[in-house]
């Protein structure tokens, strides 16, 4: 059976609401309007306004409120309409949610989940199309996950809700309608565990969120058309990052591309590339490539937007440049 990424999230929220009375949802337009992207459809009706809370448009206010609720033992799941609107709540997330447990001698954990979609490509222009996940991946005290398939979305959301740390749960606008296999009931994915979504021998593409899905597609195509054997690693968690999986892949293929929708400088790719050169220097046969979006505020114009965002074409070019002369793939 196949379900959409959207349905996977919805089902998981509902199951967690049913499982644990301490779980509740809050965010803008998630109740009466059933969510800007309809993830919370029907949940207000089913669970009532104590468990599904519509908030005013004041992100720092309701993220702070959720943090306080988590301190007192509830398990809030916040929806920030898109990651672009998370900016006003940075103080609550970075200075409070991420630090309270450590600063107050471990008196209270913060079992808080903040779900929010990133991504561009919908002609929503510069302030509504960003990928800001690296800001959070930088901060100790937070966990950051970014699933690319419906199954992983369900498995990681469940683990996030049950985790006792604040988790930034990154979704992507362009993934909501993507279909994939429905996982078994109560399927969980551990935070901090990458997944090799396709095995290969000639080079490794490391990615996350929507670009991990694009990478898998490109890799399958290249294998058929060019007999090039590409391994794809979906890191799934940005913090903590699963070093073991990416290292063992690159130790096998000796060549790596990090493929990310965010900006290149100081991005997720920079962190992964640094990790690889630190821990697998003697296994590298070429400089690690980063394929990311152009570093400009994203234009509204469709042609300019297309020219700015990275995608399959850019990845394909990078693969062609990086591919070894001798193929080790199956002949």
């Amino acid at each position: 059976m196949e379900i959409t990424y959207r349905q996977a999230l919805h089902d998981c929220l509902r199951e967690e609401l049913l499982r644990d009375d301490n779980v509740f949802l809050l965010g803008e337009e998630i109740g009466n309007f059933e969510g800007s992207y309809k993830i919370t459809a029907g949940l207000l009706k089913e669970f009532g306004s104590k468990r599904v809370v519509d908030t005013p448009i004041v992100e720092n206010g309701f993220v702070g409120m959720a943090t306080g609720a988590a301190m007192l033992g509830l398990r809030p799941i916040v929806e920030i309409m898109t990651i672009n609107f998370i900016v006003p709540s940075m103080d609550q997330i970075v200075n409070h949610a991420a630090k309270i447990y450590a600063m107050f001698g471990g008196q209270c954990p913060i079992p808080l989940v903040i779900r929010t979609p990133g991504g561009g490509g919908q002609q929503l222009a510069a302030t509504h199309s960003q990928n800001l996940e690296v800001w959070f991946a930088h901060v100790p005290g937070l966990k950051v996950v970014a699933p690319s398939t419906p199954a992983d979305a369900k498995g990681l959301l469940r683990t996030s809700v049950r985790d006792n740390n604040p988790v930034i749960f990154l979704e992507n606008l362009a993934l909501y309608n993507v279909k994939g296999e429905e996982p078994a009931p109560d399927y969980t994915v551990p935070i901090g565990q990458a997944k090799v979504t396709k095995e290969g021998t000639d080079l490794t593409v490391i990615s996350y969120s929507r670009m991990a899905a694009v990478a898998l597609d490109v890799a399958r195509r290249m294998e058929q058309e060019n007999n090039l054997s590409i391994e794809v690693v979906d890191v799934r968690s940005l913090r903590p990052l699963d070093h073991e999986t990416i290292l063992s892949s690159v130790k096998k293929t000796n060549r790596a591309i990090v493929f990310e929708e965010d900006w290149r400088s100081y991005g997720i790719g920079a962190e992964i590339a640094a990790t690889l050169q630190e821990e697998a220097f003697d296994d590298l046969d070429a400089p690690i490539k980063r394929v990311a979006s152009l570093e400009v505020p994203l234009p509204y114009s469709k042609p300019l937007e297309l020219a700015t965002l990275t995608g399959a074409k850019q990845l394909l070019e990078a693969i062609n440049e990086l591919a070894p002369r001798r193929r080790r793939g199956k002949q």
Partner: protein
Amino acid sequence: MSEITMPRLSDTMQEGTIARWLKKAGDEIKKGDTLAEIETDKATMDLEAYEAGTLQQVLVQEGETVPVGQAVARIGSGAPDKDQGAEKTTPAPQPASATQTGGDHTPTTDAAPTVFERATERDADEESTGSKTAQDGSGKTSKASPLARRMAEEHNIDLRQVQGTGPGGRIVRDDIEDVLEQRETSPAPAPIPAAPQQETPTSTAPSEAERVKLSRVQLLIARRLTESKQTIPHFYVSSEIDMTDMLVMRQTLNANIGEEGVKVTVNDLIVKACSLALEKFPEVNSSLKEDHFVRYKQIHVGIAVDAPTGLVVPVIRDANTKGVRSIAREAKALIAKARNNKLAPVDLEGGTFSVSNLGMMDASQFVAVINPPQSAILAVAATRKQFVPVDGQPVIRDLMTVTMSADHRILSGATVAHFLQEVKQLLQNPYSVLG
């Protein structure tokens, strides 16, 4: 400075070989200049410059194969790079006078100090190594990836002896694997045998052998012909065709073409006859694809040409709709291109039937290997004068033996025999091929 990369010259091209550099480092390049000739799996083509400048550095040497997209040279302004990387030539030594400017000569131009600095650096180098030949061969820089360095260490390979094919001439895993493979395939240096062993005739292998590397085209030919002969159930049908009247007609035809006209060859007439026969026998003009036959609407006849790099089969398109003079003109142009390695992939694609003619080399009979995915190939031997009984009397006629190799999965013996009958009938009635 910009890199010139191995271009993708056809849809199927994955890598190319630099057949020949027409420019060398230091040469001034104009836009559109031909920099090199590139050999692909299908043909040899020109690499053109898209911008003007100076050819700074050649990164891939003649005979080397690199994937599409890899840099093969750099173009920039000014003098060529000091760091020649993969270049085999040693950098030209600085003029001796520059070294002498150090003490007693005041530099007069802005450029001079740089020259001076370089000259002194060089001097220092030479002093430290105590040798004037520090830059010879062994002084070649060997940039290598970390993995290549590790592998070289593990396998005791001297990186200075390895030609790097990575970006900027970097030695990468592939290059080390090349070396390891060579070690495996080339026989280990034979130990000097003791005297008595020399007398026992244990080895009959010739003592000396020259190794000639296959070109891309030769590799492709080797692969495709092996595949053809091993996987296609070939069978053969021969026929003897009386060419006497056809030769007379050809003579008449060629006598009236004037100075610039192209002479029609026997082969052109055979191509025409075959294409007309193919019209009548579409099952011959077809391929086998998994569980079905593909019957081609168009008739494209390939002609086997002995090119310097090996056998090539350029294609005459829609031969059935063309007159023999058009076919002759096209064939002549294709053969000239083949001889000069100038065939483009498009010249070689799409053949639905092939003709191989060794008649001019006096072959009395031969069989050819099918050129897949085609179903058949016609081998044409020499035309010879023979006595033939006509009305009980010996008459001298020009007879030509043709042998068709056919794919038994596609064609039956009877179909091929009928097809040859048709070809024979066409060739023995010369005016029928002029239609």
